[in-house]
């Protein structure tokens, strides 16, 4: 069942928290993964794979570079959920 963008944001925040230890509150739509949250490329890939599993979507390697902000990831997941 498709989730709301708010639910996806909350789920993504948990994944980010698990990988980086960042507070879930700091994971907000307008935040940049690299510039604001200081997430490097390998942590980003871990987040992507965990998000695929959690939300039942496929996020191709080529797509990952387009996910600059948390909001970019939320809308990609939202659009691609079955």
């Amino acid at each position: 069942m498709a989730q709301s963008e708010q639910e996806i944001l909350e789920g993504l925040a948990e994944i980010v928290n698990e990988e980086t230890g960042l507070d879930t509150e700091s994971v907000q739509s307008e935040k940049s993964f690299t510039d604001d949250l200081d997430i490097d490329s390998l942590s980003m890939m871990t987040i992507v794979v965990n998000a695929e599993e959690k939300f039942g979507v496929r996020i191709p390697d080529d797509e990952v570079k387009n996910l600059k902000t948390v909001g970019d990831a939320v809308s990609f997941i939202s659009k691609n959920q079955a």
Partner: protein
Amino acid sequence: MTTPSPKGTGSITAPEGAAFSRIMGVGGYRPERVVMNAELVEAIDSSDEWIQERSGIKSRRFAAKDESVVDMSVAASLEALRAAGLEPSAIDAVIVATVTHPYQTPAAAPIVADRLGIQAAAFDISAACAGYCHGISLASDMVRGGSARHVLVIGVEKLSDFTDLTDRGSAFIFGDGAGAAVVGPSDTPAIGPTVWGSEGAQWKTISQRDSWVDVREKDLGWPAIGMAGQSVFRWAVWGMAPVAQKALDAAGVRAEDLDAFIPHQANMRIIDAMIKQLKLPTDIAVARDIAETANTSAASIPLATERMLREGEAPHGGLALQIGFGAGLVYAAQVIVLP
């Protein structure tokens, strides 16, 4: 004209091999020059801390300008032979796994054999960072199939010749070195079934940037090895953990039976993530030679093995799971008894 029929007067004698195979000894060679991160950071506008965070690498060894893949192979081989208690004359075949021998032809292996004073069968294999595990698989089958009694398997790279020191994605990753193992007959199974395969559709993920022909015809610069780090990371962790598990299952060994886990030393982050995926018990020694040796491709597993045995981190006679994965993309994994 009538179709010829076979004479039927001769019959072939089947080769006779050993019941089982084992690794009898390993040896390593690390070039003298230690290159700290500090020496590389300026060209990639980076820092020691940045490199360590992303790779766990503190330093690597670079071979001397006139030190070749063959030179390093010979040094590691002599150590492996000594550990196995064998003279070079006992070797029936030499397999060199490398992607940095700078001659398209001939292979490095015959020259290594000659330098060891032998005229054994000798050939190179190109399976990048998985080359050593491919070599162990071939050697084991050769010993059991009867085409050789003792096989010398060498993983060797002089990656400093093929590294673009201005490429932020790879400049700090690679190192030079050689590791070797002698595979011979055994009374009990000591090299488990190899789980291996390829994903050639992803061949551009790790590759020499341009073909030799393009380099000549389009007047391109030296074709260093490049890689898409994020894609490699995903494939290595989530693609290779199930392969490692299959190698355990094929050997009939449980993770908790292992004494050591010796994955290809690609990146400390990959090693840590693999352990997590495999749910490896914490008492199992894990190879982390990458910190001081960096990624030496085909040499990384035998070098890490040699270090673990020498430093007493893993026991002689213990069970180790080894897995190589890299350019191709190709992979190979097997459980072995440590010599």
